[in-house]
């Protein structure tokens, strides 16, 4: 029996939690070099609710979740867990304090059994201090029974489907008796039936009073499972509402109301004949029946949310990961593009999405970074690179693009993101492309460099280069494109002309 005094104290805590939420954060700020990822952000999760987090790509959802899960430390702000201010120093620390996160890319150990994965670091032991496998299996079976999961605890994780692995992750999180469970797009790899099962489990967890943070891009899921939702935009808090109080269009409007500033307005330039035609391009399981055409001097914007497979289409066009079926026609003739070299032979160039992963040679200097594509095709005699000519070309291009560096012998890892991006653009411009594919050309670079790159893209279009520009920033897509193609989960969901397009229309097509 507890004393009346203690009972009253418990009651007080309970009412606080009900009012403030099991997890409440406020004033959170997080800055990365050159980017303010989160600016005075707040969020409150009530126990026994599913709280959806919405926002465009780059709105700051993932950064915030990583802060809550202890991966990042905030620069400022307060995190309250069950009414107490806490510091979450590491993922383990967050877990021990009652916050579990289920990452998009599952973090299970493939060669261990389901039970071993769930109870890792907490294995039951026998008198000799050895792991008691029978007991562990029993504990797992009990846990699964509670969650209505029909999996054999002794099976190896490598034999499970993605959905089953997700169930294991959820069971693991529940086994920690977490008060807060974060799910980052848990349905992205699931079939409809598996989604139903997942939702049944989520509802059950909600019944048990767990606060669930649910990141998703899918509107229908939001209305099916979420009680409340919070919208972020550009690292700022926009608002929190009950899911039952709003419509789909309300949410889209909250997500997109981004201002169009610092954009170089597109100059209208004559659009020529069709240069690239893509028919029913398909890579099974990734994208399907992608068809579009691109004309000389045209900028075709390609919009879509994470998981829309925009970049995969670009990679297929350039031969990085070729499609399995469909046709690519250049100047009306069908071409086969299985390698980047073949794409380049047809006058294509491809600025990839991830500067560090697939763009820069960080340990090499600026000149070598600019020249790498050019010397695969020309300016080599008897194996020797014609260094003087190539250097002159590279220096010229670096000057045109206003690359800021003390000298071009500087190692690229010492340059800012914007200058690295300019080097990569310089690399492709040296190959004199007729078709330029740009994947997120201005991601993570400062405003000044951004508008310079926009100006450059327009100039290229004016010279007759056909541009396919993938961008997650709607203002950029709207400001730069003659036409906009929108993708949703591997399918083209629509085209919009420059004069009819606006943020809401794009988002409606992207977030079906």
């Amino acid at each position, binding site marked *: 029996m507890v004393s009346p005094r203690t009972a009253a104290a418990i009651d007080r805590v309970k009412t606080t939690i009900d009012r403030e939420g099991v997890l409440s954060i406020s004033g959170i700020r997080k800055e990365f070099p050159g980017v303010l990822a989160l600016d005075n952000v707040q969020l409150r999760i009530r126990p026994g609710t599913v709280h959806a987090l919405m926002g465009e790509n780059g709105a700051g959802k993932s950064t915030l979740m990583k802060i809550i899960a202890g991966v990042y430390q905030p620069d400022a702000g307060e995190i309250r867990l069950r009414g107490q201010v806490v510091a979450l120093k590491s993922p383990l620390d967050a877990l021990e304090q009652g916050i579990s996160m289920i990452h998009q890319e599952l973090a299970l150990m493939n060669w261990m059994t389901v039970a071993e994965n769930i109870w890792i670091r907490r294995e039951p032991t026998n008198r000799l201090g050895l792991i008691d496998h029978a007991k562990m299996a029993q504990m797992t079976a009990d846990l699964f029974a509670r969650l209505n999961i029909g999996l054999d605890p002794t099976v190896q994780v490598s034999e499970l489907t993605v959905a089953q692995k997700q169930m294991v992750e959820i069971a693991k999180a529940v086994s920690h008796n977490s008060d807060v469970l974060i799910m980052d797009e848990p349905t992205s790899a699931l079939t409809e039936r598996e989604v139903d099962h997942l939702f049944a489990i989520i509802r059950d967890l909600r019944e048990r009073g767990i606060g669930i943070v649910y990141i998703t891009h899918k509107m229908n899921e939001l209305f099916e499972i979420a009680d409340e939702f919070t919208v972020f935009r550009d690292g700022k808090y926009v608002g929190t509402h009950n899911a039952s109080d709003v419509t789909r269009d309300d949410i889209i409007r909250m997500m997109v109301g981004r201002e169009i500033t610092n954009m170089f307005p597109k100059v209208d330039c004559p659009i020529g004949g069709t240069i690239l035609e893509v028919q029913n391009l398909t890579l099974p399981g990734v994208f399907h029946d992608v068809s579009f055409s691109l004309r000389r001097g045209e900028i075709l914007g390609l919009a879509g949310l994470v998981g829309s497979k925009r970049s995969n289409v670009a990679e297929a066009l350039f031969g990085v990961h070729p499609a399995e079926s469909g046709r690519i026609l250049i100047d009306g003739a069908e071409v086969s593009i299985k390698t*980047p070299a073949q794409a380049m032979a047809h006058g294509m160039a491809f600025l990839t999405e991830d500067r560090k*992963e697939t763009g*820069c*040679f960080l*340990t*090499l200097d600026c000149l070598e970074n600019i*020249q790498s594509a050019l*010397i695969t095709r020309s300016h080599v005699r008897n194996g020797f690179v014609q260094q003087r000519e190539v250097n002159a070309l590279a220096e010229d291009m670096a000057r045109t693009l206003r690359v800021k560096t003390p000298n071009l012998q500087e190692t690229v890892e010492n340059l800012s993101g914007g200058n690295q991006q300019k080097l990569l653009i310089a690399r492709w411009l040296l190959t004199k492309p007729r078709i330029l594919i740009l994947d997120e050309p201005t991601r993570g670079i400062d405003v*000044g460099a951004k508008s310079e790159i926009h100006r450059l893209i327009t100039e290229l279009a004016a010279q007759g280069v056909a541009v396919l520009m993938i961008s997650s920033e709607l203002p950029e897509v709207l400001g730069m494109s003659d036409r906009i193609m929108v993708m949703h989960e591997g399918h083209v969901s629509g085209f919009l002309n420059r004069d009819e397009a606006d943020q809401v229309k794009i988002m409606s097509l992207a977030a079906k």
Partner: protein
Amino acid sequence: MSSQDISASRAARPQRRLPTEVNILLVLIGIALVFEILGWIFQGQSFLFSWNRLKIMILQVSVIGIIAVGVTQVIISGGIDLSSGSVVGAVAMVAMSFAQVSTYARAVYPGLTDLPMIVPLLIGLGCGAVVGLINGWLIAYTKIPPFIATLGTMVTVRGFAKWYTKGQPVSFPTEGFAWIGSGMMPVVIFILVAAIFHVAMKYTRYGKFTYAIGANAQAARVSGIDVERHLVKVYVIAAMLAALAGMVVAARGQTAQAGMGLAYELDAIAMAVIGGVSLNGGRGSILGTAIGMVIFGVIISGFTFLRLDAYYQEMIKGAIVVAAVVADVHRQRKRRKA
């Protein structure tokens, strides 16, 4: 601070950093001076001012130096080659068997004696190329890690070397073949090889592609480089240089044994790493490796000079390699933070 500010402040700072090779050269001078001082203290004589000692020192390391040149370009491409020591042994055996004199009654191929020196040389290089092709193909097309692929060929090729004559040594080479290992020839060959590959790595497409692949294989692919084909070339060249080293060793000793070149691959890797070649790929140079080779030689001959037991020498050699890698990792981390 916005990234624009960052680039502005960078521009203000004078940037011309000294090339890594200068630092390594300073390390070499430092180590040599330490031995010089220790020499006067413990041996009562100079370490450096002995032409004979320097000659022996450079002769000792230049055979492995030839291998290190090949290994350097492999490491710059982001890989590793553990098979070179075995290639030394196997090629020494095979080449020698085609280089025997007719006056020796128990030649391996009694009908094929007194051949011109070029015949065993080409056969040896050809054998090296075959091993390199296997290495390169395994790494580029089956995508197994270079460490495992070349560990496999290391064991297999050594086995082949022993099988070739059922463990019997092969001796009595022609004068022509023995010439490539005579006098200062190993040093001459090393300098030639190093000079050729210094130029190749710096001024040819081959070198540029090698650096690009080691710096970022994905970016290299997107730039239009046929990464797989290029990697095969890199491993073929490495194995051919190991083969050349094998023939030099055999010619010098006028005999070939299956156990020749044992652990040479590790010494070669050590020379490269000491010379500033990053095990992460994309960074380093032939010049650096050449300096690394001399450092390696100075340390070994310095210890001998100080009459340090051979057992200690090996232990210290291991520690030096680890220290060089730690220094490399440290450098990388510092750069990333900067």
